[in-house]
């Protein structure tokens, strides 16, 4: 198995709603580019570009099968993002700091 790609590439791949839709579509299904493109209102070239970014982020694996390129979800690449505890932890740290500032400013005045 190749080493995990830098998180940046994962985040960048996930930042676009179309790419997230593609990932959802690939959940549980291997698909050719044409199959992925079916249902999206864009050119096959545009879909291919999205698939390349997903592949760069390690979120999908692309395998040549005859003349086709088969795209498959790689759930393992999502592991850096799975940690909702740390996301919420940071969220509350920031919010509580803002609360403390607001409360204490209000009390002094």
């Amino acid at each position: 198995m190749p080493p995990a790609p830098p998180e940046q590439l994962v985040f960048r791949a996930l930042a676009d709603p179309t790419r997230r839709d593609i990932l959802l579509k690939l959940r549980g299904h291997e698909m050719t580019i044409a199959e992925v493109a079916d249902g999206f209102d864009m050119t096959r070239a545009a879909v291919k570009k999205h698939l390349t970014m997903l592949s760069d982020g390690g979120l999908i694996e692309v395998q040549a099968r005859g003349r086709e390129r088969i795209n498959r979800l790689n759930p393992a690449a999502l592991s850096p993002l799975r940690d909702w505890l740390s996301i919420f932890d940071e969220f509350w740290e920031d919010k509580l700091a803002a609360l403390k500032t607001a409360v204490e400013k209000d009390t002094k005045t």
Partner: protein
Amino acid sequence: MTTHAIEKTLILAAPPADVWAFLTDPDKLEIWFHRPQTALTQPGPYSMPGEDGEPLVWGDVREATAHSRLSMSFTARPMGGLMTEVTWTLTAVEAGTRLHLLHDGIPAGAEAFGLLTAFDGGWDDHLVRLRKASVAD
């Protein structure tokens, strides 16, 4: 589904009544969190709209005991409909108020995939720090 809790405690140099206002009053919540459409002082549904006017954070106030305890269910747009539980406990201390936060029911593991893919614009930048990497997009 495996869930986890986050607990935070902080001391605020203000009496519990003041802190309570910041947890329940829309004008005060707006300063540090998001503005709810109604005060969070009664059991019942609450909603905090985002800039686009659609609900960003919502749930039900379960218990609102003035100046001491506020508990509510809590979800946010990127959470894909998953409800968690947030409980604030306020205790008067010499320095002011000890505020305790319990955020329970946070999923860990593969469930988060659904949450992630539910991301869209408009959520608080803390949770969307993930999107910052998208500059080169």
